[in-house]
């Protein structure tokens, strides 16, 4: 059996099959559904581990090509960059599944939820493994579709309105992407992802077209990456249940966009071509503006999840920014932020979900003193928040560090201003939350009985555990960044691949 061929496919099927089976279950079949979910995610986790070992330690590449159109194949390939997103989604899917099981206990339509949830992960894994543009496109669009039922899961008019906006944005983005890909393929034939890019030969004859295509691709991807002005769906989509928001923000949707940008810049256009086309400065400017704009908007939001959403808008553009800078360190920063932002933001959303679920807290102004009764949750939140600010030794600092160094390498010192301003603004909108949670006086209505005021009443472990786990990971990812198996080291491998090749 050719494992290189089968492993990537099994990787996909490990969530696809549970998804399909789950759709056939009834809401009440809790144990079966749960074991399917956990089993699938455990298999995925193990496979991710095996593939990580194979790629990193033994230098293997896993690749599966399946015939699709005339001369067009669907390619699934595992190499360091794809491993990053694969690892992130495998780990976070596992954790989020546990969280979601706890979160959605007794709520209606669980079957639907978990089915689409697993599909969503399948699509993300597909995006991660995509070895060429068309495979990427297929999973990218699949992701748009399968997340829609999750966004509108609650079925309230507000959720439906948000769902419409979400769908229109993502489908619109998909259309631009599709056009860009088709145009590119018409010029270049099937485009696969190779470090350094494969379409240099078009430069002489098709300069303008390549520029326009780049714009189309980035605009299409930018919708999911929530680059201003294409970001509006993200805060709206906050209406979804917490696990969805968590996964959407941390792994699936926004990461798909950001990852796509990384792929397009490094593996389709490549360093040389991107530089010669002068397309990266506009991208960097957009990303930079997004970082600032997202932070400013976050300051003005008082709904916890919306504030987090704008924070995501801001943070995800770090990836695009780093990619656009194109230096070695900036590449490391951008790719490592793929992972770091994921684990930090998912922590925050887990906590927000816990607050909403256990205390019915949705607004920051209601958070006073919540740390007293839920110290662990609040600790996780605090770690996440500090990570976002970029305080060492948390993961966020590592990304920021490399981006900062990278900006100088690429001779774009203005980026430092953005990074620092973003840090300061992150502090400005996260620290008050942390402050209120730990040091604020609890509201009257929260502590019903005075005697219980300092009583610890945490959420159940199925909700708390995931939050603590991701918080712990985000701490470790920063603390042990220099370790050979840290996300940072992986990102360095990724960057090396892209910097050395011509």
């Amino acid at each position, binding site marked *: 059996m050719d494992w290189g061929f089968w492993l990537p496919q099994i990787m996909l099927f490990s969530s696809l099959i549970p998804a399909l089976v789950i*759709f056939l279950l009834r809401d009440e079949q809790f144990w079966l559904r749960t074991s399917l979910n956990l089993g699938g995610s455990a298999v995925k986790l193990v496979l991710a581990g095996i593939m990580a070992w194979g790629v990193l330690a033994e230098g293997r590449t896993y690749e599966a090509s*399946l*015939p*699709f*159109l*005339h*001369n*067009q194949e*669907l390619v699934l390939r595992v190499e360091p960059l794809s491993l990053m997103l694969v690892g992130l989604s495998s780990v976070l899917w596992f954790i989020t599944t546990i969280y979601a099981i706890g979160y959605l206990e007794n709520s*209606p*339509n669980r*079957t*639907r939820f978990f089915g689409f949830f697993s599909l969503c992960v399948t699509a993300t894994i597909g995006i991660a493994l995509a070895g060429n543009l*068309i495979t990427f*496109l*297929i*999973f990218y*669009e*699949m992701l*748009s*579709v399968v997340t*829609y*039922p999750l966004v*509108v*899961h*609650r*079925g*309230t*008019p507000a959720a*439906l309105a948000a*769902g*419409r906006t979400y*769908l*229109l944005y993502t*489908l*619109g983005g*998909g*259309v631009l992407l*599709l*056009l860009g890909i*088709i*145009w590119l*393929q*018409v010029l270049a*034939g*099937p485009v696969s992802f190779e470090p350094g890019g494969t379409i240099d030969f078009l430069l002489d004859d098709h300069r303008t077209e390549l520029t326009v295509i780049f714009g189309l691709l980035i605009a299409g991807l930018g919708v999911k990456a929530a680059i201003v002005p294409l970001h509006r769906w993200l805060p709206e989509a906050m209406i979804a249940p917490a696990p969805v928001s968590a996964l959407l923000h941390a792994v699936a949707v926004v990461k798909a966009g950001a990852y796509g940008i990384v792929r397009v810049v490094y593996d389709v256009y490549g360093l040389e071509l991107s530089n010669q086309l002068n397309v990266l400065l506009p991208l960097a400017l957009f990303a930079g503006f997004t970082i600032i704009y997202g932070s400013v908007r976050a300051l003005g939001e008082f709904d916890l999840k919306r504030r987090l959403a704008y924070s995501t808008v801001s943070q995800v553009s770090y990836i695009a920014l780093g990619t656009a800078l194109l230096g070695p360190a900036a590449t490391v920063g951008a790719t490592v932020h793929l992972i770091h932002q994921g684990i930090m933001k998912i922590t925050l959303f887990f906590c927000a979900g816990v607050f909403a679920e256990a205390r019915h807290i949705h607004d920051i102004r209601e958070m006073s003193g919540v740390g007293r009764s839920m110290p662990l949750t609040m600790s996780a939140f605090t770690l996440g928040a500090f990570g976002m600010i970029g305080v060492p030794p948390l993961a966020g600092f590592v990304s920021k560090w490399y981006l900062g160094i990278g900006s100088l390498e690429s001779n774009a010192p203005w980026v430092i201003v953005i990074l620092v301003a973003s840090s300061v603004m992150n502090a400005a909108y996260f620290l008050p939350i942390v402050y209120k949670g730990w040091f604020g006086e609890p509201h009257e209505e929260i502590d019903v009985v005075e005697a219980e005021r300092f009583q610890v009443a945490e959420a159940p472990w199925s909700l708390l555990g995931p939050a603590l786990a991701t918080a712990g990971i985000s701490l470790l990812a920063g603390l042990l960044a220099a370790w050979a198996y840290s996300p940072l080291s992986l990102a360095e491998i990724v960057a090396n691949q892209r910097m050395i090749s011509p």
Partner: protein
Amino acid sequence: MSLAGIWVILIPLICGLAAFAVGGRSARVIGLIGAGLTFLLSGLLVLHVWQSGVWIYQLGGWDVPLGISLRADGLSAFLIGMTGAVGLGISLYAVRYFEDEDEALTPDPSPDPSAPLRTGAGRGGTEVWLPGTSYWPLWMLLWASLNVLFLSNDIFNLYVGLELLTLASVALIILQREQAAIVAGLRYLLAAFLGSMAYLLGVALIYADAGVLDLGLLADAELTGTATQVAGGLMAVGLLLKAALFPLHFWLPAAHSSAPAPVSAALSALVVKGAFYLLIRLWFEVFESAGTVSVEQMIGALGAVAIVVGSFQAIRQARLKLMIAYSTVAQVGYLFIMIPLAGSFGDPEASWRFEAWTGGLYHALSHGFAKASMFLAAGVLLSALGHDRVWHLAGSASRFPVIYLSFGIAGMSLMGLPPSAGFVGKWLMLRSAVESGQWWWVVILLVGGLLTAGYVAIVLSQAIQHDVEEHTEPHPVPKLMTVMVFALAAMSLLLGLRAAEPLELLEIGAPFQTLMSMVED
């Protein structure tokens, strides 16, 4: 196996007649056997063409031009295969559907005491036509006539096939004798009649010009005479009317929405393709020399308007079935955009023509499965809830998850979202448009997908909407119906995952022989 082409016509006819002759409940059994056999034979035919190339058969042993020949090339086999698969799905669904319907009709509200009515195959006394009984023979005939149409290689015989198709369709529409269905059926019949007459006049003119009726001979003749050109216009407009291309779609929404669900599915998924098939067959063979870019562009323009108007109308419909019917109006527009793309625009030797050809047909395929699934889904909802008003579907998603899942998948295929067969079609057509530099079609193809999303999403979101009021328990839906709805939707998805082989099938005997080798991505 080489004679599958004959049997694929004969078997549904034999089973249809047998079902008609036997009547009663056994009609269902015969119909099912017929469906299964026809499906198998369609598969055999596809296999045969796949392996041995174009299949040509001289009926009665008389050579053309004297006799009539049958021909199955990639295109025919492709459509016959699609008809076989969709037809089987519809048949299995219909088994349960009409069982339900017939039971509902059993306590007949007939006020006429002098004619005591009994259900089923009574001996003596007065039997009644139950829709379920009448359905099977008519459906078998419809299926046969589709196969006749796809296989015939003679323009006059094609006229007869078209009429056969029309009459079978109308008879199926009025199956339940509802007033709305009768108006719709009559309107459809008259419109189709008009279209047939235009087509027939074209046949006469071509015969007057060329003196032969065989498609192959006509293609070889490379006709360019005035009569042929006029005939081309007449035949085109007649077929556009039959294919309900905007603005000649006036008969379609009512006809497709008032028929019973399995019939609606067959009409939208298959019958419309009949006229479309005939048009492209003629256009790229008989009128290859006489056709002009301007005609192609105009047909494409109508298609573009159809996409926009059809989608907008779809969203405005209060009833699900009407919405789906208008969706067909829009999707038919997509099919016709293939004509300018595969037509003579620009370099006649360009590879994009073949891409558009395969893309358009793949879209037809995807639409066949997806639209069948949608209409069948609507049928399930209609029989379970007693209505199909979109506004009142709130909360039904939790009760019919599979139905809505299928609806969503089918919708994805219509939108052309990957991974679905619709995506493959759209991808190829877009490629062709970009390659040939016909940017205006790119825009409409892309916008069309978004417009489609508009109404599909509305249905889904209505269904997902949190249910505020308590509804009565819905009428139970047989599992088989749900399974078939899902199976058809799943097919529209699966065909998008591996399109290489179906696309290769389309190459066999395609009118762009010289181009085939050039299609290198």
